[in-house]
């Protein structure tokens, strides 16, 4: 089993290295792996064996958590290809994308200011559709197209959508609290 330690997350869980992941298969593979390495099974084992089992359990958790989240999964896939998504350093997003982000953030402000939860919910729906579209583009960029630069750009864009959605949720919560 030690050779498996150097395997990547996909290999470890026996899944094809693709952005489009069958979440049920991922869940099953994780449960199966976890069952094999769960520390409880090694209660009677030696100290060394238990330590190894613990490391495996941690490794399985990390693989599962990374592959379950679309942004983490895409970033991980790009890392396997030797690409850095530049989320910490790249500030030069396409102007039209940033304009759209600005406009959406203004809508959040307006929705909050005019106490309009319906407008915020509508915006939430719009963000969801945008995200689904980006996920489809990511699957293609990281699949047949092998366009890893586009993949990095999409990961950066998705981070903005996550933040925007968190702002919308905060605004909705503020309105709900005010209504109580």
């Amino acid at each position: 089993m030690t050779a498996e330690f150097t395997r990547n997350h996909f290999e470890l869980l026996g899944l094809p290295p693709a952005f489009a992941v069958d979440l049920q298969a991922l869940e099953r593979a994780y449960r199966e792996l976890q069952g094999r390495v769960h520390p409880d099974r090694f209660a009677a084992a030696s100290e060394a064996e238990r330590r190894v089992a613990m490391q495996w359990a941690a490794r399985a958790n990390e693989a599962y958590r990374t592959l379950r989240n679309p942004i983490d999964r895409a970033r991980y896939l790009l890392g396997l290809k030797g690409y850095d998504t530049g989320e910490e350093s790249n500030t030069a997003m396409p102007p039209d994308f940033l304009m759209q982000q600005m406009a959406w953030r203004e809508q959040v402000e307006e929705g909050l200011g005019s106490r309009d939860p319906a407008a915020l919910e509508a915006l939430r729906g719009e963000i969801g559709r945008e995200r689904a579209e980006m996920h489809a583009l990511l699957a293609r960029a990281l699949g047949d197209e092998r366009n890893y630069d586009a993949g990095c750009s999409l990961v950066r864009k998705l981070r903005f959508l996550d933040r925007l959605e968190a702002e919308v949720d905060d605004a909705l919560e503020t309105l709900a609290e005010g209504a109580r």
Partner: protein
Amino acid sequence: MAYSTKVIDHYENPRNVGSFGKDEQGVATGMVGAPACGDVMKLQIKVGAGGVIEDAKFKTYGCGSAIASSSLVTEWVKGKTLDEAAGIRNTQIAEELALPPVKIHCSILAEDAIKAAIADYRKKYGEGGSGDEKKAAD
């Protein structure tokens, strides 16, 4: 996290918030964003004769440090030539606002925003440096 008094001052009383009119002459815009925190920053400059920045405005969606960094930069660039403004470094912003290490990226965003605005100006109006002052206004 505790913000410095300077950050709080800029956050509570941001300088130069807003936008210039679409048809105003000598206006250029820099838009940047930080994926890691989802902050978006728009910084505009209005350049007059001699390639001197007469006015600046900003709009930032982000944390207090990002707002303070952009607010500070709009104050700093006024009266500067494009070349002088292009020389502003994020380290100066971070130092002035006493930003903690985890907020350094906010100052980097502000530096990138002013650079983007200057690049936009040069694209729109030509070099616009101290040499060819009239081209921009014509």
